[in-house]
């Protein structure tokens, strides 16, 4: 069964290109164009991993992660943060928020794919142990 990836960004072109890259590599992709929609999908669609933009309407990427970490249904879901403001996200903040990885925009779809693969592999190892 294919791993399910939730991609949240208000830039439709970004969602589109990431979705194509992931689908071409065997993933199931669900998408959201704002933070509130992403949170709803994260809670009800049970994605294996979430890729979210930092700046989005209704809920920012940071607020989305905070809400997910406070919800039992999404507490342990790995989250990759895509941001054009990488200078605003320190490693300490990432650890506190429970961000699994942070990629700066502009990003490489190949790099994103590799990060997703690594995180899902780690998640699988943790589940097995």
């Amino acid at each position: 069964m294919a791993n399910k990836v939730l991609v949240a960004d208000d830039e439709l072109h970004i969602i589109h290109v990431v979705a194509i890259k992931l689908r071409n590599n065997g993933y199931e992709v669900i998408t959201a164009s704002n933070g509130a929609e992403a949170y709803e999908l994260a809670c009800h669609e049970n994605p294996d991993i979430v890729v979210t933009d930092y700046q989005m309407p209704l809920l920012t990427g940071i607020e989305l992660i905070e809400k997910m970490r406070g919800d039992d249904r999404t507490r342990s879901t790995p989250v990759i943060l895509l941001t054009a403001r990488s200078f605003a996200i320190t490693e300490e903040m990432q650890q506190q928020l429970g961000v699994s990885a942070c990629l700066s925009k502009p990003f490489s779809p190949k790099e994103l794919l590799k990060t997703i693969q690594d995180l899902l592999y780690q998640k699988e190892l943790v589940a097995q142990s």
Partner: protein
Amino acid sequence: MRGQRSTIWIATAVAIASLMTAAVMELQDAGGSSEWRAALLRLVVYCAGAVGVIFLGVGYARMAGAVTSMAARLRSGPSSGCDHELPPAFRGLMQTLDERVAEGAEATRRFQTELKDLEIRSQLSERERRHTEAILYSLRDAVIVIDGSDRLLMANPPAAQIFGFDPENVRHRPLAEAIGRTHAGFIELLVQCRRNRTEATKRELEFPQGDRSHTYETIVSCVQTDGKVSGVVAVLHDVTREKEISQMKNDFVSHVSHELKTPLASIMAYSEMLADGEADDEETRKEFYSVIQSQAQRLSRLIEDILNVSRIESGLIKVHKEPASLTILIEDQMQMIRSYAEEKNITVTAGRAIVYDQVQIDKDMISQVIINLLSNAVKYTPAGGRVTIGTEVNGAAGLVRVTVSDTGVGIPENEVNRVFDKFYRVAANNKQAKGTGLGLNLVKQIVEKVHGGRVFVTSTVGVGSTFGFELPLATARQAALV
């Protein structure tokens, strides 16, 4: 002196002659021997008396002469050289008197010199005080001076404005009484500075000004004279605007970098996909090329916006004005915005066409103004909302007025006057949509600086906003040149 002596001798001779005459008359009257003796005795007594009177007269005459000489000497001064005419006893007295007078004169001279110096110093001091006061009163920074007993000595108008007092009425009153207990932190700072004899200390303090708080960089210095604290001076520099500009610049860098990186992210991601052969068919490849092209154009527009604001501000932009109809420009821009509005299910309508709305404008620039106002209205209006653009002509005032109204989120009252500021973004609406804070500033610059018009805005939170601008109608001569 000789004249005096002659007078004395004449008086003596007259006195003796008078006495002798009196004695002879006595002797003639006496006749007999016993009477003769008695008469002789009286003659002797008279003579003795006459001689006594003469000597007394001479003594008095001499004294009068000495006093007269002394008076003359006093009048003519020590340099007259007539001291030898004075009796020896008087010469010593005169010398002592001269010395005392000279000492007194010297003391008086010194006193007069000191008095004059003091007057000059006092005038200089007064002049310096007036200069200092003039400087302090012309400063935009607030200045407060207190004495060693924490009483207010001086406060300039900006200080009076911050603390809300009349500077003349509070002079010499205790600081706490003059500026009120609401500024206890500031009072404490000054008092501590005086107690600790702090040479200079700098703090950032907040003071309420109208409906908002202002930040003041406050420098407090203790003034010491001969090791004693004679007062404390506080200078308050309003850094509110500087901080806001700094914050706006930081926000701008943050926003612009985000806005620049977003289309760049699409361009790089799509080109990588193409290079890696992830676009399987021709149709997908075309779609990818199209995205790259549109995102490159977006990037170019953004850079152009930033440069335009900079060019207009520096007066370097090239302006090509010609007569044009605003209604036609509005129609063109509505076509451009329609697809974006439809994506959000927002209706965009225009008022009825106006027969004559010719204005002398740079068409590209005013098109930019219209598209910025329309796209902003659509951006901040929730799905299902409405955007209306209207035009009115005020023939009497020679103005044409364009308004763009929406049923959007609105702008808080305390921020509505700042939306045209460069880089300013309404905090409450940040999540609603992205932006650089340049669009409305560009509108203002183009309308007001380039075309001599006016921008305006009214808004109610939760109801909507109306943005607009006024431009002067083209004159008949300008319009005939079309």
